[in-house]
């Protein structure tokens, strides 16, 4: 087990280190201008130097991303459960949800500013909610619906009603679908929050640090902020994976099958 974990972790760590070294070397050797691509070492130096500002910005952006993510998940799952109860609703809504999901929702950020105002954080949060909501709703609804007919017949043979079928069959069946949507939505929530910040809202956020640093030619600070943002995205993606593992123990042990 320990060996397998090492084997799993080692390659990406190695590739990461080599990648950073190549980056550092290339910038030095080819004398690339710092404003085009700063060295990892100068980005790191700036990260330490500006830590106070960056930490605060990441924290504030993180709050918007995480709260928007949770609200979006909640709404998506709720609507999926409701549409599952009413077939007409499901048939009517799903095509629209899929169509909307295919449009770049972050493009709505300026419109949301008009709708919800620029003073608070709700406009930004609304962008995150909208970006998270659609994939969660579509996938969860699919998982609740796509149950093998034999499994429903089996439950009818036990004289089970719709609620029991929902609890015992549909919800567990939807879990892997939901988990897939979560893996998609978790990093998306950070992207959505930052893009929304480009268009307005309070000025002490990651998105604003990136735009203003770039505006003042402080590219290494912008890069440091981007590094923080990608750390935040990875953190949320990692949480999604851990949630997935913990909620579906049968999936991990699923690989040992011998036939």
């Amino acid at each position, binding site marked *: 087990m320990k060996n397998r974990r090492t084997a799993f972790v080692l390659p990406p760590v190695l590739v990461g280190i080599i990648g950073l070294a190549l980056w550092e070397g290339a910038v030095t050797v080819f004398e690339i201008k710092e404003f085009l691509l700063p060295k990892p070492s100068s980005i790191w130096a700036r990260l330490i130097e500006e830590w106070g500002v960056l930490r605060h910005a990441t924290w504030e952006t993180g709050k918007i991303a995480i709260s928007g993510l949770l609200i979006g998940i909640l709404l998506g799952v709720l609507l999926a459960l409701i549409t599952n109860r009413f077939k007409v609703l499901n048939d009517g809504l799903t095509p629209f949800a899929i169509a909307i999901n295919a449009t770049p929702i972050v493009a709505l950020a300026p419109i949301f500013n008009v709708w919800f105002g620029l003073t608070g954080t709700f406009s930004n949060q609304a962008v995150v909610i909208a970006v998270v909501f659609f994939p969660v709703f579509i996938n969860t609804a699919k998982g609740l619906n796509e149950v*093998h007919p034999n499994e429903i*017949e*089996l439950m009818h043979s*036990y004289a*089970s009603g719709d609620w*029991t079928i929902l609890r015992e069959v549909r919800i*567990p069946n939807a879990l892997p679908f939901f988990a897939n949507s979560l893996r998609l939505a978790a990093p998306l929530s950070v992207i959505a929050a930052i893009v929304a910040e480009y268009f307005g809202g309070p000025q002490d956020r990651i998105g604003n640090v990136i735009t203003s640093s770039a505006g003042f030619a402080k590219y290494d600070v912008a890069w440091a902020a981007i590094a923080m943002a990608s750390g935040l995205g990875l953190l949320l993606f990692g949480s999604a994976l851990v949630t997935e593992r913990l909620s579906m123990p*049968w999936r991990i042990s699923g690989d040992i*099958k011998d036939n």
Partner: protein
Amino acid sequence: MRENSENLEEAVSIRAADKVFNPDSDNEVQALLGINLDIKEGDFISLIGPSGCGKSTLLRLIADLLVPTAGQVKVFGKTANQARLDQDYGMVFQHSGLFDWRDVSANIELPLELKGWSKADRQARSREMLELVRLEEFKDHYPRQLSGGMQQRVSIARALSFEPRLLLMDEPFGALDEMTREHMQVELLRIWRETGTTVVFVTHSIPEAAFLSSKVVVLSPRPGRIHSEITVDLGDRTDQTRQDPKFFQATTEVREALRAVEAG
């Protein structure tokens, strides 16, 4: 009570049953027409016929998963609906229908859980059932870790866990390879003997029907009707029975009936 005693030994009694799918529309299908069938308690009945003969539909009428368009289906003297609500039968499908998220014991315990059995009683029963299907050491495995044959055994254990008097099986071994299939047939007969359950078994395999059944019901298609009922008596069956001339004779009889059906 005395007057009913004759009824009581009928596990299933079907009278003049019709089934029409999508009535009064362009894709109306007459799936079953004028079905009369009696199944005695303790019998092992196979339903066989070409595809489209309505054998799975007939099984679902008995299970009350489908309602006949006309006619009557009685299970242990009750309406099929009452029998389903009383859980008088257990069901096994070709697709094992085991839940990925429950381990083997928890799958077997599902119907008991739904009936509100206590945890201790459930565990005791699932141990007995695992012993019956000889999978004791796999109780903590998840279905995806089992082979197809093992999954079907769990599925049989689950269907029998609440001791129904009737077992309905819809091509349960259809997805298994030939060797596993023959092994499962012997196992099923052993379980049938040990539990005394009445079995209705849908199959499209001639040797399977002949090997397992006390009676083979041959259906003809479009619309599905009962063509003939063939009584088989092979006594105690083992793998050797497959080389027995009596087995050969039984398969020949079923095959000829099916040819007559195909010839229309």
